[in-house]
């Protein structure tokens, strides 16, 4: 008999399912009027206070910035005035102090500190590029020279590293899932008995599967396709582990481990975790 009736009620009705539906109909939800909780009006006051505080802070910041600007300007004016004084007060009785260099503007307008740092690093005299471009290059090199296995680095190259991670929550979830799948795989390879105790892995998997759904939908909403795809492929594995009996047989575990290996899911999760670690450096 086809399972279409179980799926969407179409096709030939299954008498057993029909009788179960009739039997359990008493438990079905009966529409009731909704009790909408009153919105706290305090929220409005909080917003007003927050907006007022933000305006005060902005005004204070403006005043402070204006003060600093006028102070800097005063220092520059003072320096220029001093230079002019040196030039104007030069008399045979009062000779100017000897200066080591003629060009005094070097000490007045020193080059920005970050440019100096770049000059020291690569020895070039003038570099208009900001310092972080070199830093990015270091990161990319780091990916290629990291300690990933051949398998994982192949997968890493196939993933866009810049867009895969935008939030730490997803990354932590991926790391947890990776640890769970490793533990599950080890439980399979470690034991020689016919049945295995995977109570911990089942519990963990149940926790992760619901989180996985929410994060997958979130990634979908943000058009983060690599993460969405990864979480979508992870979901059935988590479900299957969660639904295993308390002491599954070797065959039941083998089927899941085989799928994990075929999908290379552990390696893919490891690559994502690795890329995040690099991104957070």
């Amino acid at each position, binding site marked *: 008999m086809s*399972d279409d009736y*179980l*799926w*969407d*009620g179409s096709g030939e009705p299954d008498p*057993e*399912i029909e009788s*179960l*539906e009739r*039997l*359990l*109909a*008493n*438990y*079905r*939800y009966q*529409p*009731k009027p*909704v*009790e*909408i*909780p009153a*919105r706290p009006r305090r929220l409005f006051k909080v917003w007003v206070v927050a907006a007022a505080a933000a305006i005060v802070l902005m005004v204070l910041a403006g005043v402070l910035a204006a003060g600093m600007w006028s102070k800097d300007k005063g220092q520059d004016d003072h320096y220029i005035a001093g230079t002019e004084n040196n030039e104007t007060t030069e008399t045979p009785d009062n000779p100017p102090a000897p200066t080591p260099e003629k060009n005094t503007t070097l000490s007045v307008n020193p080059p920005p500190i970050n440019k100096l740092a770049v000059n020291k690093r690569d020895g070039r005299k003038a570099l208009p590029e900001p310092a972080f471009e070199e830093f990015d290059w270091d990161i990319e090199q780091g990916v290629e020279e990291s300690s990933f296995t051949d398998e994982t680095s192949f997968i890493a190259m196939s993933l866009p590293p810049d867009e895969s991670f935008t939030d730490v929550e997803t990354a932590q979830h991926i790391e947890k899932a990776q640890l769970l799948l490793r533990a599950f795989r080890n439980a399979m390879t470690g034991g020689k008995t016919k049945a295995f105790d995977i109570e911990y892995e089942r519990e963990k998997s*149940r926790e992760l*599967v*619901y989180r996985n*759904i*929410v994060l997958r*939908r*979130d990634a*979908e*909403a*943000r058009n983060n396709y690599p993460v969405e795809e990864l979480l*979508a492929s992870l*979901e*059935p594995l988590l*479900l299957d582990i*969660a*639904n295993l009996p308390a002491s599954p047989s070797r065959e039941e575990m083998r*089927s899941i481990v085989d799928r994990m290996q075929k999908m290379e899911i552990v390696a893919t999760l490891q690559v994502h975790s690795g890329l995040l670690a690099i991104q957070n450096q």
Partner: protein
Amino acid sequence: MSNIEMTVYSSWLGKTEAVGEEPATVHTQEALLVEAVRRGDEDAFGKLYALYAPMVHGILVARVPWGEVDDLVQDVFMVAFRKLSSLRDSRAFGGWLAMIARNRAMDFHRSTRKTEEIQEDLAQHSQYEAEAEAAKVLAIIRELPEAYRETLVLRLVEGMTGPEIATRTGLTPASVRVNLHRGMKLLREKLGMEKGV
């Protein structure tokens, strides 16, 4: 998995892809309702309640004693209403709400005990035979693994179809289909055992 089972499973997955296309517009409408609730539209909250109450009810029926379900449904929607600002993607409302319902059921079990005894009472002291039978079947469904029992309750008790369950809970249609198939198989086995005894 035998060849026959594999063929059935593949044909199922082939169908789920077609089914999976459907909920896009549904999601958009629900996302609009969520946005409206965020703006303070109480009618929109009423509509969301009407759409999702059966799902929340089903999730709770699968986990907590029958007498507590109605109160907990209200609780879940109260929490959802208060925390709606923390939901980042309006389209994920169903999955988010389902998670609140599951967490609320877990909180209930942490704070109370002897829920199993209540179920036993329900089964033993029901006045009518049909009610006693229904309570017994529900108790058996509740013994199934979590994913199966939730999906089966939504299908058999709440009368939702597989595609509806997928749309509301945020699970993929393929996962729902597998859960329904395997859950029903387990339930049949257990019911067979019961009848045998």
